[in-house]
């Protein structure tokens, strides 16, 4: 058991590393044409991505050495900062709307998406708060109102950006986390339902999002697919079994929009075939399994919730992204963790992995103190 546990964090690290390497290669392949066209430097996006991956990895290793409870303790602060950034997005005149929504703050050449940080902050905060409060069994209605308020304050500004996809995924993470924490789910029914109500309003106002969903369901019935999804299918289908070979993608020549960000999985399929896409899928499943195992092994409830939250966050993003690429969900603008061209999501995700590694390490130390106790689950 000890050995197995010892393997867990290094296996997790290895999976992440493989995904990152694949990501770097695919980002380069998919972006070189566009980089050449815009910047006359085919390595432009590669370099940018590589630096971020490097920075993220260093950050991850640093964080893995820091006791994760530190983050739990300062989680209200992080949440506050995130909230501030989200509000800044809404009110600042400096923020430029990209494709109709205000999601990014430009920090030099770095695009920071506050929602990414807010997501992690919320997971940290809820793990901290739910993990502690549940043990103390304080007044339920007070807790309910308090959490409802916090969650709503984070999700609302995201809905207003508007960024429906992220809002829905955060809601989903929140619901799952609450469920895992052992709280009565109905108490958190409202915070979960809030974004949905808002989303409905947004959809009724904004034509294109509603249109996307309509088109998605229409496409399931065999009607013409959205251009991007159609192109995604052509990438995957043309890739076939073995793919066109690294660098062989043709869809990246403006056919497939966002080839190195949201639709990088399609390019993987085009260049490496179903062998590539399946390999990624298997790596993701392995990641989830190991992540969940680490969470299960965590004795402390906040740590357990935190581990769950982090794994959940990445897993939901990964599966949503692939589902969009495979036209099983409408287009949402969700990147593929570790693979997609890096933004703040990459950094935040690696930050999360750092925490997860720390949790795993602490578990191992406790286990070794317990000796050969194998009945723990």
């Amino acid at each position: 058991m000890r050995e197995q546990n010892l393997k867990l964090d290094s296996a997790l690290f290895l999976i992440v590393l493989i995904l990152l390497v694949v990501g770097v290669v695919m980002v380069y392949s998919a972006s070189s044409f566009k980089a050449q066209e815009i910047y006359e430097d085919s390595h432009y996006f590669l370099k940018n991505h590589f630096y971020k991956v490097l920075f993220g990895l260093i950050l991850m290793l640093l964080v893995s050495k820091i006791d994760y409870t530190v983050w739990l303790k300062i989680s209200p602060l992080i949440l506050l900062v995130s909230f501030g950034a989200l509000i800044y997005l809404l009110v600042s005149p400096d923020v430029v709307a990209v494709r109709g929504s205000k999601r990014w703050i430009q920090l030099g050449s770095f695009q920071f998406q506050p929602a990414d940080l807010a997501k992690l902050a919320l997971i940290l905060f809820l793990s901290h708060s739910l993990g502690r409060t549940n043990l103390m069994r304080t007044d339920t209605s007070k807790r309910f109102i308090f959490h409802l308020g916090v969650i709503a304050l984070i999700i609302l500004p995201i809905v207003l950006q508007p960024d429906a996809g992220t809002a829905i995924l955060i809601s989903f993470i929140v619901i799952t986390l609450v469920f895992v924490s052992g709280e009565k789910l109905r108490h958190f029914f409202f915070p979960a339902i809030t974004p949905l109500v808002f989303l409905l309003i947004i959809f009724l106002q904004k034509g294109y999002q509603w249109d996307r969903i309509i088109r998605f369901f229409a496409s399931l019935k065999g009607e013409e697919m959205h251009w991007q999804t159609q192109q995604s299918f052509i990438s995957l289908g043309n890739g076939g079994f073995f793919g066109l070979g690294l660098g062989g993608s043709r869809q990246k020549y403006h056919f497939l929009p966002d080839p190195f960000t949201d639709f990088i999985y399609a390019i993987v399929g085009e260049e490496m075939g179903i062998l590539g896409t399946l390999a990624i899928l298997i790596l993701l499943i392995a990641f989830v399994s190991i992540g969940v195992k680490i969470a299960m092994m965590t004795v402390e409830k906040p740590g357990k919730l935190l581990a769950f939250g982090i794994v959940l966050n990445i897993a939901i993003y990964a599966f949503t992204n692939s589902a969009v690429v495979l036209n099983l969900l409408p287009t949402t603008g969700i990147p593929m963790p570790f693979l997609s061209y890096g933004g703040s999501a990459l950094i935040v995700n690696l930050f999360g992995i750092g925490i997860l590694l720390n949790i795993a390490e602490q578990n191992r130390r406790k286990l070794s103190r317990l000796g050969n106790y194998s009945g723990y689950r």
Partner: protein
Amino acid sequence: MQIGFYLIAAVLFLRLVQIQVFGHEKYTKLAEEQYLAWQVQKAQRGLIFDRNHKSLALSNSSFDISVDKRMIDNPEKLSRKLAVVLKKSSSEIVNKIKKGNNSVILERKIDQKQATMIKVMNLHGVKIVESTERVYPFKEKLAQVLGFVDIDGNGLSGIELRFNEHLTGEDGWRILQKDARGKKILPISSSTEDPKDGDDVILTIDQVIQTIVEEELRAAVSRFNARGGSVIVTNPHTGEILAMASQPGFDANRAARTSPAAWRIRTITDIFEPGSTFKIVAMMTALENGIKKLDDPIFCENGKYKIFGEIINDPKRHAWLSFKSVFKYSSNIGVAKIAREIGKKEMYKSARNFGFGIKSGINLPGEVSGILNKQNEWSRFSLLAISYGHEVAVTPLQMAMAYGAIANGGKLMKPVIIKAVKSKDKQTISEFWPQSIRRVMSAETARKMTSILKEVVAGGTGTLAAISSGRVAGKTGTAQKPLEDRPGYSNSKYVASFAGFYPADHPEFLIYINIDEPYPIHSGGHVAAPTFKKILQRILKIYSPPRQYSGEILANQIEKSDSQVIPDLTGRRVQTATQILKNMNIKYQTKGSGEIVVSQTLKTDQDSGEFRKVVLTVSDFPNQTEYVVMPKLTGLSMRRAISELSVRGLTAKVFGSGRVYNQVPEAGARIKAGARCMLEFKSRNQIDTLLN
């Protein structure tokens, strides 16, 4: 929770298999449809040269500029930029853009400099399309013979039409990979076919002589207030045409704006009653058949001869004239009497032998055969009328060739205007050798006739054609034009003509002239003969001493090889091929063994370059058990694709029509000989729309 993820993963897995494994074929096809762009690479149209390699027709690049409205955000701004280069007002350009459809052609045929300037400006939505423009540097000179092309470069008349296939060449194509914005990125190396530029056509025309002829013809037409006229200059020994002109003419560069009537090659398409120039038929027959000697006397009835209820008049009254003087003074009565002695049968035969009533076989479109009725259709009087050139109709070219037979010692030559067709890499594709059609008369008769024709110029009707440097032989013709509305002849409309050659005893140049409806002076001797003289003098000024057109040498070669165009026999069965050659009296040799002619080459003498024989390489059908390599067929026409397959012993199942769009198996595949392939055809347009 884990189970939930596994379930999701399973769904994703199935979806991947569905798209990537089962959808592979479908999406590969979709992918190719959107990546591949068919780009035609225009073949350069061949040039037309004169015998001294002067360009008579060439192709220049020109550029059309067009804008795609959908790609323009600010037409005003764009127009201001373009206005400077196009030298137009920007408001004019804006209007043009706004009025037009999605794609508007702003200006056609801008020059290279302007095109480069616009290219450098790199304007979004502005397209520059290169096209080639046919240019005829000598404008209206030789225009009818050269012809012209339509806007797509297809020959519409003249040489351009007759040799269109050679001149056009074959467009090449490339299949390019393009991006979603239609930008062509890179050629896919395996699928290209380089354009085959058109072949050059080299004419026997001498541009210098042509220029002289054009200028003098024009001058004569205007001086004699004529409706038009034709001139032909030939080398009588070879039948080569050195110049050929007719009026009214047109500028080939502006053909579309001229009257189609001017496009005709009048020297071969227009017929007229020749009048006295036709008397050579009776003259020749009488001498050749020994009916008359040069000095035999003939009574000319003092200018008025009633016979068969008709009256024949002479312009000048003569009582007795010797045989040769009948021609010298061009007595109609005298020649009619000679004709009576010759008889219908011999008269008809001689006229046919001179080539009248038959197409000369010149390699130009639109030739007519003229009118020479069969002898059994003749009335009693017809024989007489025909003797002085009525009741027959000839083309100027027929007349020139007939006189050529006298000049060269008795052989009717096939007129040649194409010297050679050469590919762009200077390989001779076909060469047109002088060809004798038949011997019309003995050399002796020809010599006698020449002596008579010399006298015509020395002291007869043709004195105005005489030049001081040497003897000219020739004959005048003054033909009344038939009335258009009733039988009979006009008293005011004439065709004045003159046919002559120089130097009379060793002719280098034969010049035939006719002037249509000259007024008021209308006789051949006063209208055509002086024009002949002017042309001849100017030619001699340049080619004096008379330049050797190597006529003798070429004539010798005809005797030896009796040159003919050798047919393409590749792909035929050996028996068939050899039978064809036997029938044509062409020597041949076969190489290899088998049933099919694979290739054919000509063997020539190493020293003289003379043609020796045809060498046929033969081989068998591909062995049925062998493997062959599937050729690349995409883009080929059905005929070519199937011949490519059949050469390899393959058969094809064909879908659609047009050009090969898809082939199974793919190019390069090794397949059993005799196998059946599948070819999908689509029209060029369809392919274009599919790929673009």
